[in-house]
């Protein structure tokens, strides 16, 4: 029983990692129907920037804020320079370009900071929390809370602000939005900026747990894909819930299903992606859209 509780709790902790990354993926998908394969590497890269700033003596929260700003501006520039020329291209072109970004960011991080793992400071206290034999860290709680907070802020932004409304409109109805004076192309750039911010937050939350190195996100990103698909790739709420479910599910399968063990987790993630896409393509929280010819 205690083991079960422990597995569920650490599943939630891992799940919140997937969730925060999935949230970033969903933001880009919502703004341009694209999966950014480089999302994880961008998050990793910005986390390194934060690390560097802390090394230079900046207080953690200042580094945090500065990194978010850098992530936003950097991603907007990136969208303008690299994505915009292929904005209207088909999925294959965009897939390849984002793969190119993935390779580039990974290489750059290795070039600048090397491959030795780095310890990233955590804004939360280190002391473990122990409730009835189930132990976890305040960092775990912190990630869950930050993910939920990001979700809340994002939801409010899209629901309540004029800019958020314009972004939704631009993503869903680019042609109609244009004639209303919405600069659709900039909305896409803004979408990149926002998702990079969420990614940066995710990276900085995750790094204290998994430790920082250029390959930090490679293991996470596939689970984030699975989480996003599970929750419905257009739904921020779905991304978070999908991430948490996935985290718990993988832990329970790994612990109690002999065949899966700890070594078939990726295969399970693959199976979940395929199964969800086949059975309920819109995910748990996505809207089912009516296909029209």
């Amino acid at each position, binding site marked *: 029983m*205690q*083991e079960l509780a*422990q*597995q569920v709790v*650490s*599943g939630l*902790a*891992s799940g919140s*990692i*997937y969730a925060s990354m999935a949230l970033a993926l969903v933001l880009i998908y919502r703004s341009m129907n694209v999966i950014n394969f480089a999302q994880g590497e961008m998050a990793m890269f910005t986390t390194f920037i934060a690390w560097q700033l802390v090394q230079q003596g900046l207080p953690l929260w200042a580094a945090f804020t500065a990194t978010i700003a850098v992530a936003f501006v950097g991603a907007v520039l990136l969208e303008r320079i690299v994505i915009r020329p292929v904005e209207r291209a088909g999925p294959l072109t965009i897939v390849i370009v984002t793969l190119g970004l993935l390779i580039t960011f990974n*290489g750059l991080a*290795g070039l600048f900071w*090397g*491959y*030795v*793992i*780095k*310890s990233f400071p*955590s804004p939360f206290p*280190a*002391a*473990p929390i*122990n409730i009835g034999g189930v*132990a*976890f*860290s305040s*960092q*775990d709680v912190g990630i869950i809370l930050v993910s939920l907070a990001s979700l809340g802020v994002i939801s409010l932004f899209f629901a309540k602000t004029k800019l958020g409304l314009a972004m939704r409109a631009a993503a869903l109805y680019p042609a109609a939005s244009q004639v209303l004076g919405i600069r659709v192309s900039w909305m896409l750039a803004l979408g990149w900026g926002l998702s990079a911010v969420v990614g940066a937050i995710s990276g900085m939350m*995750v790094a*204290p*747990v*998994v*430790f920082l*190195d*250029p*390959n930090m996100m*490679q*293991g*996470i990103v*596939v*689970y984030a894909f699975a989480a996003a698909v599970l929750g419905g790739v257009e739904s921020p709420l779905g991304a978070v819930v999908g991430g948490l479910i996935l985290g718990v599910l*993988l*832990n329970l399968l*790994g*612990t109690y299903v002999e065949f899966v*063990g*700890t*070594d078939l*987790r*990726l295969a399970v993630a693959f199976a979940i992606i395929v199964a969800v896409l086949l059975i309920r393509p819109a995910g748990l929280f996505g809207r089912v859209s009516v296909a029209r010819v």
Partner: protein
Amino acid sequence: MFISSKQLIGSVAAAFALVLTSGATSPLVAQSVPGVTATEVVLGGLHPCSGPASAYCTIGKGAAAYFAYVNDKGGVNGRKITYKDLDDAYSPPQAMQLARQLVEQDHVFAMFNTLGTPSNTAIRPYLNQNQVPQLYVATGATTWAHDSSQYPWTIGWQPDYQSEAIIYARNLLKVAPNAKIGVIYQNDDYGKDYLAGLHKGLGPKSSLIVKEVSYETTDPDVSSQIGQLKASGADTFFIFATPKFALQSLVIAAQQSWHPTIYLNNVSANDVVMKGATEKGGATATAGVISVGYLKDPLDPRWANDSGLALFKQIMAKYAPGVDTSNLFYMYGCGAAYTMVDTLQKAGRDLTRQKLMDAAIHLNEANNPFVMPGIVVQTTPSNHFPITQEQLAKYDNGRFVPFGSIIDARPIIASESK
């Protein structure tokens, strides 16, 4: 320069036949030894500098720095060493092609310190068939020594993973014969070799192991695995992991309020891991962790006034400026390169591949400045494990404090091979 491949293969085959029959060096090979001129000897190597295993790239850079230092000091027997170190991205097919390129296009005299069990396994038959020495490979699998009769041109350098695990097992049986053991290991050749060693070391007492869990290098974290180990009731925790996951294991165990006796494999027993784990998991996360060492950790205050460490720092500052010298991989590269230079020296002025191999299996190197004092890099025709000695140490107050004397796994290996 232009040799048709037919001729090449033909001559190799002829040479092979000659060696088999007479055991003497073929005159064909002696005439012109690939990669050797009056002023130069060319070595080749493969390290992953892109892809998931890029962390190991630095080993090659460390070795290259040492060779540059040796060259500036006049080289070996008047020859400068040219080290062609290529990136195989940890991919066996790529390793195979690059090895052929190094042998057939760049005409390397020998391969030195190629990294990783998969890559070395892939190129071993080719190199042996063509009698190209595959020296001091950077992996601790036992196969390099155990299968030396089948692959006489291949030899490892570092202590093998199995011996290391056997050392831990013996130590454990001595101090806590009724321990309940939980193991986390990386699900690849590296982790499984350690696991096999642990089983061998425990022998009939293998039943002490109550839980074994593995992780994949693609796993984001190992909290689920640690939870399972904790739930198993284990009081002794073996970590056979790469630094990242070792660090996570230490921290997560502490965070889950699990405080077993911990054995940590050598690869991960470095300052980055221990400092990081102490910082995140508190002092209890690392206090009393047991490991072994054979290299001089640049951050260990024991070596603050050591001449070997001073040499290391001097070399790195001059030939690899700007790199993070606290990274033990550089030390590893220098240490292996030292043995390589030593071997070339012993092989003599009149270099052949056969002579190089002979030197490699007659090592007796007590003065490698980069490995711990007292450890002798030693081989014999019947023993192809260059380093078998390791020093047990316990983590205490920010550093590993050695305890007991240097343990030589050689007798264990000897009994093992029987």
